[in-house]
């Protein structure tokens, strides 16, 4: 591979858009070409800076509050640290591997360029673990009310379970056997009180028809939970067909 061909591909490597067939020859060239390695490091910031050219749109006012509700409440509930040592361990292992394999600076650069991706993967695993911890904490807490979700038209057996922790205003809903929402539609979860229907959020089942969703919302006096089919993005009030319902029982 020539330096010119390498520099053609370097942008795609930085943006993680590289076609798989291009990766090996590019890595091989970078391993032996200090000039191209320097070039690649230089364009990384330029490539990311493309995002600075986007027209600025302010996020919704409540997003900041929602973010803090996500990061703060689990800390209180579990009393555990949010640090993720596995990410650091992985990074150290990557560097060690590069050195053990006799890798040059190029190998270290390649690991560096992949690091953001691996960090993202590690963060997802950490996020999953945290979610499980949150769910466990919610299920073990006192004053949890539960509801079985049924299809309103064919109420043979429950297809979902709702757990509502009234003290923490936390909701955990597990649903099985749901088909994908129609194109352009989404499922939306509602807490039903005597005077209002409060959105608990939208969701999509996975490929197996399963969905586990968690929401934080104060819904004092909730009597039931329902799932409706709404336009993609959700609705302020239920307008579409109700596909699941369940009455909230007494505290467990």
């Amino acid at each position, binding site marked *: 591979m020539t330096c010119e061909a390498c520099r053609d591909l370097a942008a795609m490597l930085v943006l993680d858009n590289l*076609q798989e067939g291009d990766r090996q020859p590019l890595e091989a060239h970078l391993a032996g070409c200090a000039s191209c390695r320097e070039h690649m490091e230089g364009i990384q910031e330029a490539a990311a*800076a493309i995002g600075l050219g986007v027209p600025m749109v302010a996020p919704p006012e409540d997003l900041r509050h929602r973010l803090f509700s996500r990061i703060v409440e689990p800390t209180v509930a579990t009393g555990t640290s949010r640090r993720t040592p596995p*990410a650091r361990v992985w990074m150290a292992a990557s560097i060690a591997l590069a050195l053990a394999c006799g890798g040059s600076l190029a190998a270290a650069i390649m690991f560096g360029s992949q690091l953001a991706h691996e960090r993202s993967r590690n963060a997802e695993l950490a996020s999953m673990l945290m979610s499980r911890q949150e769910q466990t904490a919610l299920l073990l807490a006192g004053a949890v009310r539960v509801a079985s979700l049924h299809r309103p038209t064919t109420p043979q057996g429950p297809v979902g379970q709702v757990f509502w922790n009234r003290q923490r205003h936390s909701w955990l809903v597990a649903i099985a056997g749901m088909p994908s929402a129609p194109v352009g539609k989404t499922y939306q979860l509602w807490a039903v009180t005597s005077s209002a229907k409060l959105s608990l959020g939208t969701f999509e089942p996975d490929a197996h028809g399963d969905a586990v969703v968690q929401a934080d919302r104060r819904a004092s006096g909730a009597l039931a939970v329902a799932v409706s089919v709404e336009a993609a993005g959700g609705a302020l009030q239920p307008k579409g067909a109700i596909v699941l319902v369940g009455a909230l029982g007494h505290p467990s």
Partner: protein
Amino acid sequence: MSSIRPGSPCPSPLDRQPASGGRSPGDDASLLARVARHDQAAFGALYDRYATLLYSVSLKILGIEVEAEENMLDVFCQVWRTAGTFDVTRGRLETWLLLITRSRALDRLRRLARQERVAAVAEDPALLPVALPDPEAAVLSSERQQAVIRALAGLPEPQRAMLELAFYQGLSHSEIAERTGEPLGTIKTRIRLGLGKLRLALAPVQEVEA
């Protein structure tokens, strides 16, 4: 776990911090160090500093407000958990945040496209990110942003369009060729030249910051 959009805000434990006009690497480094120690005030300041930029990128890629909001929550939760893993000596915090945001948004876009929920958005030429950046917007943004907006506006339209297809839609050279009908070699050249000009445009700003 399926995605969920919380129905209502929870009370924030923090008062809103005033947005910071500057984004010097030194400021970012100290802020991130505090976030790594789970300093919530620092996290709030970091959010205020970057939320508009990262939300704008999320919205540009995803095209749906709800999904952009979810992407933001994912990105900032990731930052909260992994701030200690970022080495400020290896690059700018802004670069890290932009790449995380872009990567997660593209992952989300691909998931949504598989579900055919936003297939129409992804394929609609009217929504392709080829709009000329508004130079007037630069007045309100940082010096670095101004440099990028000016540089993008000064690029030949095909170079800018292809850079943006690569960045906002995560397309490879071949995919861009398929999408635009242009020869592969032309696309490689345009992206390389466009990125080179962007790099040159940022160099003076980086020297000033350094």
